């Protein structure tokens, strides 16, 4: 039996603004964005930080949506489920996302994030332009700029992990830190 009070305390101490586990449907994601928008409006951070946060939140939620919108047929487990969490510490916000991913996609994604993490902000600007110039939107509407944008706007490296679920399936987690100091 889950102890509700313990869970409540955990969320309070971790300064969790919002936490969700479940289907990443369009409606759910859009309501979460609404909730976070109003929480951001009330918060004491600068407009610049609010805007950055909002932008990164949109990219994160759309990633989750595009991942689960057309489930990967190579994943056998029930895979439309995702996790999404936002916390607020004194100096920063943190956004956590997690979703199932086919083992076939791991290598490519890992390389992309590692490349993005290896670039400084000036090179990221150039890389963003390069992708934009050669970019093609996938049928799902994603353009390959999302991760670059998250890294640029947060000015922090993207933390990520792959957890093996079975031979064909991994769980991909992404953690983004957004400083509130500028």
């Amino acid at each position, binding site marked *: 039996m889950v102890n509700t009070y313990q869970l409540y305390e955990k969320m309070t101490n971790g300064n969790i603004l919002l936490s969700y586990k479940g289907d990443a449907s*369009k409606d759910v994601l*859009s309501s979460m964005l609404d909730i976070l928008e109003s929480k951001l409006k009330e918060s004491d951070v600068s*407009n*610049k930080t609010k*805007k*950055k946060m*909002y*932008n990164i939140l*949109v*990219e994160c939620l*759309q990633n989750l*949506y*595009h991942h689960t919108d057309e489930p990967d047929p190579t994943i056998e487990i029930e895979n439309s489920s995702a996790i999404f969490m936002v916390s607020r510490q004194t100096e920063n916000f943190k956004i956590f996302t997690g979703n199932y991913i086919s083992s076939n996609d791991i290598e490519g994604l890992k390389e992309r994030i590692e490349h993005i993490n290896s670039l400084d902000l000036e090179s990221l*600007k150039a890389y*963003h*332009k390069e992708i*934009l*110039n050669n*970019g093609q*939107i996938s*049928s*799902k*509407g*994603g*353009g390959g*700029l*999302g991760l*670059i*944008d998250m890294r640029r*706007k947060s000015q922090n490296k993207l933390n990520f992990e792959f957890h093996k679920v079975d031979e064909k399936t991994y769980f991909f987690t992404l953690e983004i830190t957004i400083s509130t100091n500028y």
Partner: protein
Amino acid sequence: MRKLIVEASKTTPQIILDPIKGYFLFEGRSFPENSKKFYAPILEWFEGFEPLHNKDYKLEFNLSYISSSSIISIFELLKKVHKLDKLGNIAIFWKHEHDDESIRQIGEDFTKLAQVSLTLEAISTS
């Protein structure tokens, strides 16, 4: 060419394409779930548009949020406009809030990449 109006939604901008007035506007937020799908009819509209030689046109972007996939769609649109603007009578304005570095930067990138000249215009926020 018929006038096209798309009402704004929570995630998509208001769009006015008025060939008689010579005025095109994109205003609000742009982060549709599927930007390719959302912008397809707009691209199609411009596909069939031919500017008149004795007329001036104004294309105005006043966007406060642009998702990364919208950036790609708007870039496609600008490339299309650049192609059909053989007479050079479509003036493009890219507005951004004065302290919004990232929207301004997107406009700058477009200028360099699409070879269109955008007039960047800082607006003050209330």
